[in-house]
């Protein structure tokens, strides 16, 4: 892979542009305002810690960081405390590290979402259609399969799309509930980072392959989604 010409150059250029604003941010943080507006240097000529001192001594500044930290920590604790019981439960019933483990855990989030989306579609079906079907003699299962499902097909498409997307990108539960056998691709991708550095080519290839199923799903449900987004509760 390293034989592809220019690969390193493109990667370095990309990283350079990506990191440049960050370097510039750090650089400026050690300058005085006077130096920032009057001259342009790649590094501070008169380095100063005054900016950082302001932030750490002025309460209106540092309380902002504390607030942010608070809710991030609370959020993390809640997320993990949701994930951990699954881990315990699944370990106890030998579901741990199987696809079922993650699938069932994702249901917790996907089922309410799907119900919420589909409810909008089902309630947009006129009551008269139900009644006509029952007057025609349809039993409920037959009505459901022959009449209702085709009517809310676009809703099913939209709900499937959202469930797929959530499940596909979800990492927290997937990592907690699997170790080796049922490990998701997003977790496996972290293997490209090793002591020897990052295997960029491998990571990129994995990324491309990760996009394909999502693209396929969108391709198949795209007609339903266009209608579904316009009609239902999305």
């Amino acid at each position: 892979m390293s034989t592809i010409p220019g690969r390193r150059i493109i990667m370095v250029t990309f990283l350079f542009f990506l990191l440049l604003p960050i370097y510039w941010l750090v650089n400026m943080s050690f300058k005085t305002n006077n130096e920032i507006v009057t001259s342009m240097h790649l590094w501070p000529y008169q380095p100063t810690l005054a900016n950082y001192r302001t932030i750490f001594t002025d309460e209106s500044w540092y309380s902002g960081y504390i607030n942010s930290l608070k809710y991030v920590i609370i959020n993390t604790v809640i997320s993990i405390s949701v994930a951990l019981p699954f881990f315990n439960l699944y370990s106890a019933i030998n579901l741990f590290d199987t696809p079922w483990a993650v699938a069932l855990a994702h249901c917790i989030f996907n089922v309410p979402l799907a119900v919420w989306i589909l409810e909008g579609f089902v309630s947009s079906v006129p009551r008269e259609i139900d009644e006509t079907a029952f007057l025609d003699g349809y039993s409920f299962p037959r009505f459901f399969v022959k009449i209702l499902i085709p009517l809310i097909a676009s809703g099913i498409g939209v709900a499937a799309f959202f469930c797929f997307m959530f499940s596909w990108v979800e990492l927290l539960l997937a990592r907690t509930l699997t170790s080796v056998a049922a490990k998701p691709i997003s977790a496996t991708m972290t293997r490209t980072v090793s002591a020897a550095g990052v295997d960029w080519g491998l990571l990129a290839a994995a990324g491309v392959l990760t996009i394909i199923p999502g693209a396929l799903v969108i391709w198949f449900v795209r007609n339903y989604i266009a209608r579904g987004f316009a009609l239902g509760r999305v």
Partner: protein
Amino acid sequence: MSVTLDHVTRTVDGTAHIRDVSLTLERGTLSVLLGPTLSGKTSIMRLLAGLDKPSSGRVLVDGKDVTGIDVRQRSVAMVYQQFINYPSLTVYENIASPLRVQRRPKEEIERRVQEAARLLKLEPYLNRTPLQLSGGQQQRTAIARALVKGADLVLLDEPLANLDYKLREELRTELPRIFEASGAIFVYATTEPSEALLLGGNTLCMWEGEVLQHGVTPKVYRHPDTLRVAQVFSDPPLNIVGIEKKNGSVQYAGGINAPATGLYADLADGAYRVGFRAHQLEVANGAAGRHAFSATVTVTEITGSESFVHLHRDSQNWVAVLHGVHEYEPGVTLHAALDPDNVFVFDAADRLVASPKSIAFSSEVPSGSREENASNKKNA
């Protein structure tokens, strides 16, 4: 077969939708439920179909109590005001649907669907889905489905209300003919008096959840039991004026005195209300024997072949219908005239005491044979 509502009341959240209605509908008859919006037409239909349960009272089919029996066990078909079809099925499958559920043999389904499609002129569209059809074709599909089922009770809830004028005319003349052959009980709800007259059969005049009068359509039209029935069965709205009869003359409210001729002759002295439909009010310089008024034009509506002249007289608004195009400027004073032989007179309790003498009708609730209605329609 017959369907009977026996002292049926339906109350929803404390509001009475149907108040103590008793009626019997016989096989092979067409009954028109006539009444304004919210008068309970749809509620009656849903009770007859078994889609709703009465709060009290019974629903009987051939004398057997079917109150609370599932709609799937009953032989009922219904056409709604909205065009209700199965959007995912083709027109053919839509019409065939009740037969498929009944597990009829293939050849029979084919034959009956083609027959219904021919009757309702749907043959070219059998392979389309309902959403690819016009409104009229969609409603014809719904009617074909109701027809093909061969139900004993067919309910048509304002089936033509959402169609354009021309289609409505066309279907309105076709419907009685189409359903006549099947021998079922037909119930047709409408808000339009003219529709009831064109369909013939029996009319049940409805107001606020009650059946005010049930009888042969032309009889209800010509001999409304009460002022309310006359109002429901009049479009444009019934014109009303109060009178006081005394010593052989009548005093109209607003101060016109006239000799008590015509229908007024036999009235006892007292206060009455006189009702007359738009076509009973003449706009002319009264011929001999007419009671003349002067009234102010408020607006004139011209439909093309008829002119509706809205008049204001002594705090009352009247409407007169004239043949041909007549343009009267608002504010103009016109001479209006009433034929004392051609009015409805109601007593203090709003009960009919005199109506134009034309054809005598038997007072019992008739079965409504078609020939009789056809001849009545001509005279209506």
